[in-house]
């Protein structure tokens, strides 16, 4: 057992080294901009760059719309499947896994060819429609995470009893979903939302191929043209991912722990 613990420490320290050295190196590199002294110049330049602000805001807004669209699609479907159509569950689970099977580049390639300017649904005809298509693409990418989060949340509440109670009190379907079900799975929905945010904020493939002024293509552009700013941007991106994951962890402490129903 003693040798077991020794090897556990060895593995852990090797792993920690592999994961922390790049982070330390990136921080160090990002501060090397001024000759002979460490400074935050690279961060100042990046944060002051108008294109940084514009593309970052663009991606934040895209992420927010992605989350709204994802919730609108996933929550009613997951709720309805738990309540009325459990036989559809395997099909829906299979579909929500497809974005992990079909690479993002293939999905967006399909969009470009199917919804081009000459098609019946010309998403690429103008900027607004293309922005919408980007949000749709992001919602597709986040489908596996959003569905799993919401379904886990629904599992911890008694969907049937809550619905029946609301119906007895005279609530319609929209009232039931927005005022009974959604507040009960809000924490799960928010977990899915933050994960979606983390995925969408720096996404490169779809934004680049749809020619959108998003944060991902901006990052790539800076990487190809500058020396120290990319390292600063990497640290900023890591901090954003870290922030999203911490929020999910904090939220999970508020989530109901026990399932009322076995299913």
């Amino acid at each position, binding site marked *: 057992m003693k040798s*077991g613990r020794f*090897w*556990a420490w060895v*593995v*852990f320290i090797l*792993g920690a080294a*592999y*994961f922390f*050295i*790049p*982070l330390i*190196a*990136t921080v160090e*590199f990002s501060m090397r901009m001024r000759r002979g002294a460490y400074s935050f110049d690279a961060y100042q330049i990046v944060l002051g760059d108008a294109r940084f602000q514009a593309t970052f805001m663009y991606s934040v807004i895209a992420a927010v719309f992605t989350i709204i669209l994802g919730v609108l*699609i*996933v929550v*009613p*479907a997951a709720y*309805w*499947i738990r309540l009325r*159509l459990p036989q*559809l569950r395997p099909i*829906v689970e299979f*579909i929500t896994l*497809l974005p*992990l*099977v*079909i*690479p993002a*580049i*293939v*999905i967006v*390639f*399909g*969009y470009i*060819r*199917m919804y081009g300017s000459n098609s019946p649904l010309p998403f690429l005809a103008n900027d607004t429609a293309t922005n919408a298509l980007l949000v*749709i*693409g992001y*919602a597709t990418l986040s*489908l596996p995470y959003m569905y799993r989060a919401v379904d886990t949340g629904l599992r911890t509440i008694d969907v049937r009893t809550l619905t029946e109670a609301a119906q007895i009190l005279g609530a319609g379907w929209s009232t039931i979903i927005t005022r009974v079900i959604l507040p009960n799975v809000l924490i799960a929905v928010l977990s899915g939302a933050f994960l979606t945010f983390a995925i969408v904020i*720096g*996404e*490169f*493939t779809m934004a680049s*191929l749809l020619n959108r002024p998003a944060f*991902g293509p901006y*990052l*790539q552009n800076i*990487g190809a043209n500058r020396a120290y700013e*990319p*390292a600063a941007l*990497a640290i900023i*991106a*890591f901090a954003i*991912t870290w922030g*999203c*994951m*911490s929020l999910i*962890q904090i939220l999970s402490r508020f989530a109901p722990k026990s399932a009322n129903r076995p299913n």
Partner: protein
Amino acid sequence: MTDLSLSNQAIAGKTAPPSEARALRLPTQWIGVAPFFIFALMFLILPTLYLMLGAFQNDAGEFTLENIVALAQPSIVAAYWISIKVSLASALIGAFAGLAIAIAIVRGGLPEWIRSATLTFSGVASNFAGVPLAFAFLATLGRLGLATVLLNTLFGLNIYAHGFNILSFWGLTLTYVYFQIPLMVVIITPAIDGLKKEWGEAAATLGATTAQYWRMVVIPVIWPSFLGTVILLFANAFGAIATAYALTGSSLNIVPILLYAQIRGDVLHNAHLGYAIAFGMIVITGLANVFYIWFRTRSERWLK
């Protein structure tokens, strides 16, 4: 005749109200899931099918296998081959390293905070991919990266003089491992938690040594979820483009980068060849996931 059937229906309706009620409710049954299915059909299934059909058509829209045959040209085969190599190498390295870390934090007798810190960090690192990850590795193992410089000044080891290059097969593999290991840790830790203490006690009671316990109990139980996760990691790396593109530009010709160039500028001078490349990618990740599901169902028998 009409009269008769009408009255029959009326009678049937009166005697069997439940069926009538069901018939009335049928359309509303689907309203809740309709947005989901319409969305999935329009923006996930149909675009993919469109490409897959396009792979078997020529410019005139006739059925042909020419595009698939054209995939056999050396540059495309080389792209598939390097993609498969990078994905497989990063999946295997990530899987074994991730498994070792998961076993260490679950079974190694390390303090509890290490376990929770590792799992939290894994959650972050498995999502830290794309362009910023490329920047981090350029800052580490690029020509002026910290690790490169330190290895040179401290140990006199110039890794670039020894043939290492971040813009190469090993450079890309080492970078992909950064999100592959944490993903493995996140997925496999529950499987190792699922190893029941009783099994170890039962094995010990029956006189098994630690080595026998690992060889005859632990490995057979973990094996399916391990293999399943390796395949998931493979598919994960195979479709990734942003990291590779930001790291190597187009100097390392992996399939997603080839497809990216084809979509942007028809570098292959044949639109339908692009469809065929996409089709090939779907076939490879699809096959990988069929195996994944198969292994997953096998492993679920034990880990309840």
